């Protein structure tokens, strides 16, 4: 039934053997040592502080949307670091390997990375940054904020929420494992057909890529179902559609995109899987296969995915800018319409990813025009933010700085995006670094919004503000790094440099590549400031404790409960009277949180099943990568069995008694009254 493989295989270990461990590569050995030391430090700390049971009880088995959101963010942060290291390797390799006389080290002809190695690095960089860094960070923040903004006590399906997270985590673990066992795909993060077919890529790299991608897609789809149902069904009484906070609107739009587009990604990857495992001919070069089918299916997901990433970022900006302009958001209704217009248009633009691939002029023109259409709702949003700031009392606190940086990056990225939208000129720079610089502006916009959002909502989740001094250093060095890396990249793009080079043949480009390396140095310094920012904030956490409304000028429901938010979110579900309910209550002198006569609260009960399913899925994918059929069959059977058994569970929720609620509420009040408050 399965395709006959070249090379050794045995029924017990599949393709796995000691040769799969790349101990001859000093870079990977170094990485392995670093990872081991980090892992030992973490495990050691867990044992030393006897934190194991606490972690299991409070975090691993949690179904609390805030904790799951925090874990999503931590996962995203770790993967962001990994993706950044990949970027560092790409930039340093390209700065070294310029011209025929550039020296080579570690077995490479030029620079220090062999073509096979740097291929894996840029594939991993792309996949990780999009799927395992940006997506978890955004989903995490949506997870935390959306239920609070609509006055709900949890997501619609808390169990599914945990499951989605653990599947994403399993997928990320799979990508990390490929560093040390086997290798990773080296043909680019979006796949390259028919090169990714078994005859041309017989190794495990493509399989790792495929299964990690697939698993995370399943996780994200689950998350999107959950968020949509939460927004549609769980809003507090009185919160009509047009009273919903803009971030919630953006989340709704973005998750509608995810809901409809991720299944297409699953199909595009699954068909590749059938080709690789069963020898079918979906994307093969001969026998009736069609490689353009892959490109179309993939980018039918791929482009909506871009807006899936950017809409929540826009939503975050729409929350931060009014707060720090001390005004209500300008053009609320147009913001809503613009979000959905972007979400809608996102479905009609995918072909602009391959204008050069033999489409008729009429087809190219169509996609060219639809791509430019995106500029209209985006422009509406930009003007709305500007008019929000106009005549506002703008305060340049950290979240606002990040939001403003995002706005500038959106201008640069958006303008260059319009340039890319011309099919005719795209022929000049297709697959060039001009395009790379363009979409890095966009993803850095997303990253900026995320940093802003983390600064903004951090006090809500943890009960203390992040300090500002190191945070500002971090911010400015990120600005510096961005300028120094991407301005030269735009120039090189015009000069004709193509992307993903392991060797740069044109010596005249060397100065620009070195300037980019300086930019990377700024990023490294920024990373140091980020660590200092976190450290100082954690050290001074008692000094920086805050109440329900740490910024003073916030407007939405999430600021109407204590910081940190209690497990049940709201002791009483709020009744909503206006858009910007919290601002409305403050204006009308109803801003007291006080209320007595607490009641019992029903909450979902913690469960270890999602962790178990995550672990089984990880083992399943690992077995499939290495073609260990017995393990794959066992894991699949167990997954089905666990799902069925779980459906028989009776006690899936519990009651928080009124006395406990009263105790938590009183403690939160007392903490505020204590003199330690900064």
């Amino acid at each position, binding site marked *: 039934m399965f395709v006959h493989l070249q090379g050794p295989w045995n029924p017990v270990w599949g393709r796995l053997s000691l040769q799969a461990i790349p101990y001859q590569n000093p870079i990977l050995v170094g990485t392995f040592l670093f990872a081991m030391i980090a892992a030992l430090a973490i495990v050691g700390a867990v044992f030393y502080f006897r934190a194991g049971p606490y972690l299991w009880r409070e975090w691993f088995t949690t179904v609390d949307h805030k904790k799951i959101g925090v874990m999503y963010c931590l996962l995203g942060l770790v993967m962001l670091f990994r993706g950044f290291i990949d970027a560092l390797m790409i930039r340093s390799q390209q700065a070294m390997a310029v011209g025929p006389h550039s020296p080579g080290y570690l077995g490479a002809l030029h620079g220090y990375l062999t073509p096979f190695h740097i291929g894996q690095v840029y594939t991993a960089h792309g996949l990780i940054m999009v799927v395992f860094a940006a997506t978890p960070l955004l989903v995490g923040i949506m997870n935390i904020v959306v239920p609070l903004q609509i006055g709900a006590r949890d997501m619609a399906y808390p169990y599914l929420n945990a499951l989605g997270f653990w599947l994403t985590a399993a997928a990320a673990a799979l990508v990390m494992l490929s560093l040390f066992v086997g290798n990773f795909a080296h043909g680019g993060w979006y796949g390259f057909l028919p090169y990714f077919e078994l005859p041309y890529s017989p190794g495990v790299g493509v399989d790792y890529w495929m299964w990690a991608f697939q698993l995370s897609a399943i996780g994200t789809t689950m998350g999107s179902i959950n968020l949509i149902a939460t927004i549609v*069904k769980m809003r507090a009484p009185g919160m009509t559609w047009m009273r919903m906070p803009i971030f919630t609107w953006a989340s709704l739009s973005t998750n509608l995109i995810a809901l*409809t587009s991720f299944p297409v990604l699953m*199909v595009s990857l699954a068909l590749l899987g059938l080709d690789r495992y069963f020898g079918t001919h*979906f994307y093969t070069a001969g026998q*009736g296969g069609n490689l353009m089918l892959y490109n179309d299916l993939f980018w039918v997901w791929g482009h909506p995915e871009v807006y899936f990433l950017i809409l929540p970022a826009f939503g975050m900006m729409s929350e931060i800018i009014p707060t720090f302009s001390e005004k209500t958001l300008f053009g609320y209704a147009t913001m809503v319409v613009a979000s959905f217009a972007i979400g809608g248009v996102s479905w009609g633009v995918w072909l602009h990813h391959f204008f050069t691939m033999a489409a008729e002029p009429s087809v190219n023109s169509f996609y060219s025009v639809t791509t430019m259409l995106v500029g209209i709702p985006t422009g509406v949003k930009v003007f709305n933010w500007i008019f929000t700031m106009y005549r506002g009392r703008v305060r340049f606190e950290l979240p606002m700085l990040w939001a403003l940086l995002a706005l500038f990056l959106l201008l640069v990225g958006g303008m260059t995006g319009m340039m890319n939208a011309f099919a005719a000129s795209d022929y000049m720079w297709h697959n060039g670094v001009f395009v790379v610089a363009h979409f890095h502006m966009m993803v850095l916009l997303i990253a900026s919004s995320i940093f802003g959002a983390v600064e903004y909502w951090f006090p809500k989740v943890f009960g203390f503000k992040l300090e500002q001094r190191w945070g500002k250093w971090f911010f400015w060095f990120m600005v510096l790094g961005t300028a120094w890396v991407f301005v030269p990249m735009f120039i090189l793009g015009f000069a004709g440099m193509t992307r993903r080079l392991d060797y740069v043949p044109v010596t005249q480009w060397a100065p620009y590549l070195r300037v980019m390396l300086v930019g990377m140095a700024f990023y490294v310094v920024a990373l140091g400031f980020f660590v200092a920012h976190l450290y100082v904030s954690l050290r001074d956490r008692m000094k920086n404790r805050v109440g329900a409304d740490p910024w003073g000028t916030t407007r939405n429901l999430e600021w109407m409960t204590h910081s940190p938010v209690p497990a049940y979110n709201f002791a009483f579900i709020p009744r909503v009277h206006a858009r910007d309910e919290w601002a409305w209550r403050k204006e009308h002198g109803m801003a007291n949180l006080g209320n007595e006569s607490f009641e019992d609260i029903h909450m979902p009960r913690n469960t270890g099943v999602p962790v178990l399913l995550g672990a089984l899925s990880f083992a399943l994918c690992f077995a499939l990568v290495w073609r260990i059929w017995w393990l794959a069959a066992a894991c699949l059977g167990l997954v089905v069995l666990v799902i069925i058994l779980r459906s028989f569970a009776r006690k899936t929720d519990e009651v928080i008694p009124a006395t406990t609620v009263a105790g938590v509420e009183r403690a939160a009040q007392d903490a505020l009254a204590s003199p330690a408050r900064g």
Partner: protein
Amino acid sequence: MSASTNTRMQPGSTVLWEKGDAAGHDALGTRTFGFWLYMLTDAMVYAALFAAFGVLAHNAGLTSKSMLASVFDAQAAYRDTIVLFASVLAYGYAMVALKKGSRTGVAIGIIVATILGVIFLNMVTGDLEHLFSQGVVPQLNGFLSIVFTLVIYHALHIVVGVLWMLVMLMQMGRDGFTSNVVYRLINLRIFWHFQAVIWVFLFVFVYLQGKVI
């Protein structure tokens, strides 16, 4: 600017906080709504597969289509259709019984639906085995790859549906019509009807198309 900012409010009589737990949330409706969303993702999977079918059929040209007509037995598929639709009908009667609150009625309906589902699976597997034995396999060309993928993916859904029905029989026997059991029965109805709808597309595109040309 929110319009209601200007409205006159009486702070004393304004209700700021709700009493009670779920504040009007409809648990059953929420469950079913989420399942509809899931069905939408599955519909997208089928949409992508049918799009691939279109592309690969175009690739293969007419020869493959006439081959399709000669190897896929439309009359056998018609028999499959009747069985599957009868299964859906039986499940529909189970839902009528659910409205009446009759446990026996629901059980009988589901048992009939399950048996018919298994018969359907048996027939489809027989068809596939027959084709495989003649050397018509998905590995032959891209067009057959997608044809078999569509048929098998649909059959896997039927397997899941049959398993789900067995689970529901057990849970109904144990718990009666608790809200968990009821919403699962409703969702299963959506799922089961959806598979019948997909089968209509399969029947038209895979089994009938070659005949028409």
